[in-house]
């Protein structure tokens, strides 16, 4: 398990290699990378700054990874979330999940992202031509997270 909150960029290939290195029991690694877009809610976005709650962030990420591990048979999980100022095209978040078969890996990767979106204490502030603005939480994110408790 690897959970990191950092300002620096990450390398998807290096992270996936690190998971699989020396493990012949892994049959599937599913990964997700979230990127900073150049537009949101009809405005251009020139940059964004990610704020977080040091201490709680790591605790919240560890809790949702533990939940995923109790739901599915996972062999390894890596979660890396960046903080600080990011430009369009920069990576924001990486989730990579290893398991014996693809079904568990796909499901757990999506679960972790949905849970992170509603429960990990990060906040985005965008720089637009109209000025700075805090991003509002999306109802669709709550719905995405809720479907895992409905099933």
């Amino acid at each position, binding site marked *: 398990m690897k959970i990191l909150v950092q300002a620096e960029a990450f390398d998807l290939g290096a992270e996936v290699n690190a998971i699989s290195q020396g493990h012949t029991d892994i049959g599937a690694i599913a990964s997700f990378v979230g990127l900073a877009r150049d537009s949101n809610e009809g405005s251009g976005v020139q940059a964004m700054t990610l*704020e*977080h*709650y040091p201490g*709680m962030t790591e605790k919240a990420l560890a809790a949702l990874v533990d939940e995923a591990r109790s739901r599915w048979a996972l062999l390894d999980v890596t979660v890396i979330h960046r903080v600080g100022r990011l430009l369009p095209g920069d990576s924001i978040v990486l989730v990579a999940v290893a398991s014996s078969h693809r079904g568990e890996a796909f499901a757990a990767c999506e679960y972790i992202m949905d849970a992170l979106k509603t429960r990990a204490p990060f*906040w985005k502030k965008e720089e637009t031509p109209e000025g700075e603005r*805090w991003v*509002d939480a999306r109802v669709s994110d709550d719905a995405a997270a809720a479907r895992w408790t409905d099933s």
Partner: protein
Amino acid sequence: MNLRVLYFARLREHFGLAEENVDFAGATAADLVAQLQARGGVWAEELAAGRAFRVAVNQDIVTLDAILPDHAEVAIFPPVTGG
């Protein structure tokens, strides 16, 4: 009792405060929110009924009926938007 109260993101900016020590005579998270609302101005505005905010006690998100232990670290922040 004494609480360490932290604010993040939009609330930190509007309150002009990242953290403070609060002398608290109530029991629950709702009591603390009411005490802060009573300051008026941006406090009354941001913490008004119907405004979306979250409360964490010792780094776990709680509901407003949660009991606050003495010396708790309480954080109040907008719904999260990471990922």
